[in-house]
């Protein structure tokens, strides 16, 4: 079959032009509505999403519109200003709470081989896990540290801006349906035992051993709004900064840089880097591939 020109081609130039300027205006209108919504959330509730990466934030808002059965963002503004539970539901949908145990197993293998030896030289190790969501990765790190004989000297601060996910994280119960994937990740990440040694399955939940949370303090912290609160040897913040715009990412990296001890270790997500940021010169790569950096002296 020869390629066909579709009826879309026959629009006259003027019609086409009119259609295009119309859609541009509607795009502008939607941007205005987005700005107003984010301002409304900030002024009314205090959470500041104005420096989040716009493309994925817009996607989450569109998806929320469908769930909330509202047709326009303006309609959503009215809803959240007059109905507190609607605001809570929106805030929950705007934060990204997708996580996994030992996501990117090679990161955990690299952490074992290049960060653990450094940590052995410290009498106590302070770790900040920023943006921990429901905690899967925190438990993964506890398992790793326990297997390396370091857990007892570690104090882990696991933070998220969303108090409901922290409550979930404290319980340490994750879906049994994910355990097959996590077991495979665990082995690829250098796991030394069997992942099933660490949890008890009950119905569809896997309850992780409470000792894995013994040295963990789950507490609320908002990277966009709160200041640093201590000094750390390691900061883990993986796949969180991707949801921030460049300004907020720089702000968070500034916070991390201030909060790290000299030669402290910063772990980012697999496709996040310090390139394109103001902090490139303050850190050296321990593993460029796994995005493990060390603060310079």
């Amino acid at each position: 079959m020869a390629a066909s020109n579709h009826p879309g081609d026959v629009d006259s130039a003027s019609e086409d032009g009119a259609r295009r300027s119309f859609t541009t205006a509607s795009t502008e209108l939607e941007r205005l509505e987005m700005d107003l919504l984010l301002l409304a959330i900030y002024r009314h509730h205090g959470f500041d999403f104005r420096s989040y990466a716009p493309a994925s934030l817009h996607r989450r808002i569109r998806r929320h519109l469908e769930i909330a059965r509202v047709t326009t963002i303006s309609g959503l503004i009215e809803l959240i200003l007059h109905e507190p539970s609607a605001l809570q539901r929106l805030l929950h949908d705007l934060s990204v709470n997708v996580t996994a145990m030992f996501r990117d197993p090679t990161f955990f293998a690299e952490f074992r081989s290049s960060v653990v030896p450094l940590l052995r030289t410290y009498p106590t190790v302070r770790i900040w896990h920023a943006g921990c969501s429901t905690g899967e990765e925190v438990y993964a790190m506890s398992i790793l540290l326990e297997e390396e004989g370091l857990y007892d000297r570690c104090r882990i601060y696991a933070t998220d801006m969303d108090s409901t996910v922290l409550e979930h994280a404290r319980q340490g119960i994750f879906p049994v349906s994910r355990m097959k994937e996590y077991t495979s990740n665990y082995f690829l990440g250098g796991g030394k035992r069997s992942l099933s040694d660490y949890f008890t399955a009950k119905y569809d939940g896997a309850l992780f051993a409470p000792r894995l949370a013994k040295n963990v303090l789950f507490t609320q912290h908002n990277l966009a709004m709160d200041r640093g609160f201590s000094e750390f040897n390691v900061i883990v913040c993986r796949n969180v900064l991707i949801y921030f715009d460049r300004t907020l990412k720089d702000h968070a990296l500034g916070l991390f840089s201030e909060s790290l001890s000299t030669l402290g270790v910063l772990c980012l997500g697999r496709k996040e880097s310090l390139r394109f940021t103001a902090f490139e010169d303050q850190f050296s790569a321990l593993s460029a591939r796994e995005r493990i950096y060390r603060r310079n002296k």
Partner: protein
Amino acid sequence: MNARYDLVVMGTSTGGLHALTRLLSALPASFPLPIAIVQHRSRDSDERLSLLLRGASLIPVRDAEDKEPLCSPGVYLSPPDYHLLVELDCMALSTEEPVAYSRPSIDVLFESAAYSHGSAVIGVLLTGANQDGTRGLRAIKQRGGYVIVQNPDSAESPFMPKHALKSLLPDRVLNLEQIADELITRANETRLA
């Protein structure tokens, strides 16, 4: 001179490696628009896809990094297990839930491009065996962008382009070997004052 378009987004699934190899090899090294591509790939796929495409393409090909500035000429591939999105001036990644079992998802890339770049987007949907991409092409169309669908008869796996053609009118339906020429023509189009 003001170019009419400033970005190309492409999506493909089954048969995509072959189609992308042919399409990219037919574009000149100086192709003036950045090209962002979602090719469905498994969570643990390695760098072979980018290596193969790098071998075929005159334009530099890379797995996209978060906040990497949009440069042209340049081809940006979705890394495995992330959604790829475009902002006004940079690439963005997301670990949000798979959409229709896919992460990366073509719809996510296309919808983000439509939102960030409005009518300046060219969307291209190639061979594939699922429904991903249709919704995203509609978003591009709605905001006045330009939509090309591979002629299903020329596609290794016709389901995806066919599915799109059922619910939208693209600007062009083209055989694979015609798409590169069409892109070159569109890329040189200027904006009416």
